[in-house]
């Protein structure tokens, strides 16, 4: 029968072993794989400025990006491909709440430069290799 000492060893030994593996995988991901998979060299000052705006206005509080965020407004990972830049710019610079089908978006009234930065950010996001996400709907296959 298992003793308390053995149980303690199982906890500490198992945890330390798994954590070391996790750190190794993290290192490989960050140092070798993510820069290539996300085109880190394309992280221009405009893209970074777009990300700051994305964070500053808590866009993730309604939308999802990479499938992460809230589920109140559309997923924006491939929004450039889906909607095109002029449409996105109109939404971002709208002085009144954008309200497709009655669901309102806050009227941020971004300047032209801010809208360009956010579009640069979406363009960078859209080019990241996401292992097949979002999946193409059956009807488009």
């Amino acid at each position, binding site marked *: 029968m*298992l003793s*308390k000492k053995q*149980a*303690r060893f*199982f*906890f500490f030994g*198992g*945890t330390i072993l*798994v*954590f070391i593996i*996790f750190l190794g*995988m*993290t290192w490989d*991901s*960050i140092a070798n794989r*993510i820069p290539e*998979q*996300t085109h880190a060299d394309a*992280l221009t000052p405009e*893209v970074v400025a777009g*990300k700051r705006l*994305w*964070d*500053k*206005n*808590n*866009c*993730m*509080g*309604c939308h*999802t*990006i*990479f*499938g*992460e*965020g*809230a*589920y*109140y407004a*559309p*997923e924006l990972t491939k929004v450039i491909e889906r909607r095109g830049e002029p449409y996105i710019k109109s939404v971002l610079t709208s002085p009144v*709440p954008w309200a*497709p*089908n*009655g*669901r*309102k978006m*806050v009227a941020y009234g971004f300047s032209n430069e801010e809208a360009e930065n956010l579009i640069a950010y979406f363009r960078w*996001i859209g080019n*990241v*290799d*996401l*292992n*097949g*996400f*979002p*999946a193409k*709907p*059956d*009807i488009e296959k």
Partner: protein
Amino acid sequence: MKYKSQKVAYWFFVACMVLLVLQITYGFIMAFAHLGYDGLHAITPFNTARAVHTNLLVVWLLCGFMGAAYYIIPEESKRELYSIKLAYIQLISFLLVGVIAIAGYHVNWWEGRKFLEIPRPLDYLVVINVLAFLFNILMTLWKAKERTTTAMVLTMGLVFAALLYLPGMIWFDSQTLDSFFRWWVVHLWVEGVWELIMGGILAYLLIKITGVDREVIEKWLYVIIGLTFISGILGTGHHYYYIGTPNYWLIVGGIFSALEPLAFLGMALFAITMYMRSGRNHPNKLALYWTMGCAITAFVGAGLLGAAHTLPQVNLYTHGTLVTAMHGHMAFWGAYAMLIFAVISYAMPLMTGRKIYNNMTGLLAFWFSNIGMIGMTLSLGVAGVAQVYLERKLGLSFMQVQKEIEVHFFVMIIAATLFSTGITLYLINFFRYGKPKDEAILSETEFESLQSQGA
């Protein structure tokens, strides 16, 4: 209650209850918005309601963990808390930071990173606050003659939770790296170190309620928390499937996430087995209900419902849909909210000397809130699955699908009303106890005291 300083816990529990009511209020705002009634958009747009709802959840659960620790640690270490004054200062400052953060969310002051919206200057205050809390707990243990496994596991969970807050405070230019380390906080909290806290508190409650030998309970506690970390640490991989990270995370995350329910199954079997081995008929039935309910609902909500959409092949379609919200509601309710309710239900009669632990109000609170939560989970589940098929499989647009699934939010609001009724009844019972009294300090064991005085 054996030590005067344990009374501090009461004010943490009061704070918990108030914050929970606020959390539910903002939940209703969100549900109505999903239904098409967003009349508060001008003052509380959806992203504000959402940030307040999720952050209040974290804040009241942390408040509950702290309260539980302030109640449990003195008793486990057989001495008074290191500093009562520090505990009160820490509570007040913790609440102040929380209130400022929530007010900030209403004026667009936040970081906009899911679950970690709190602005950076306030992050530093949180760190100072948590350090003060840990100092108090660690000093109590340091000066104690006895350090039980239960106390050490609980403390270990609290220390790791504090350490894991730090990766969430690093700025990244890349959305992928930002997300990668955000999950170090969020995932490794709720599917890692918080389970340590849960295990510690559950072990304490089972020792007290069932009377089973401490050595037996603590032995199995090690096994369960071992399973938690072995599956949960590499289980972080299920957040790294589709965020720009290498595809080996699909295999590693898939396998270890599939193992994650084992820890929760262990937790449920642990509670049931100890209850069946119990040689005593503990009079505090409500504490027993919430303790057993916590272990079982955590297995269903966090374990099974999590496993239902964690396989990469399934998650490719469910990722970023209401299916996640379905799992999230029952998981947090079962594993953590019910745990705090269990501690409060156990501690209140002992802190106040009043025996309101076997009444209809309390029983109805348990059943209404649980049935309500099951109803909310089901409605979110149906809405989520419908969303997956219509949007992800058939290719309908997001808003077209939202219109189709709107009705499920009507059902959710009905279930949430039942849930809120249960919470209201719980609050009524809670406030009927009144404040803790020094006369409630016992010289005999708590169980003996409850037996001799009767219900």
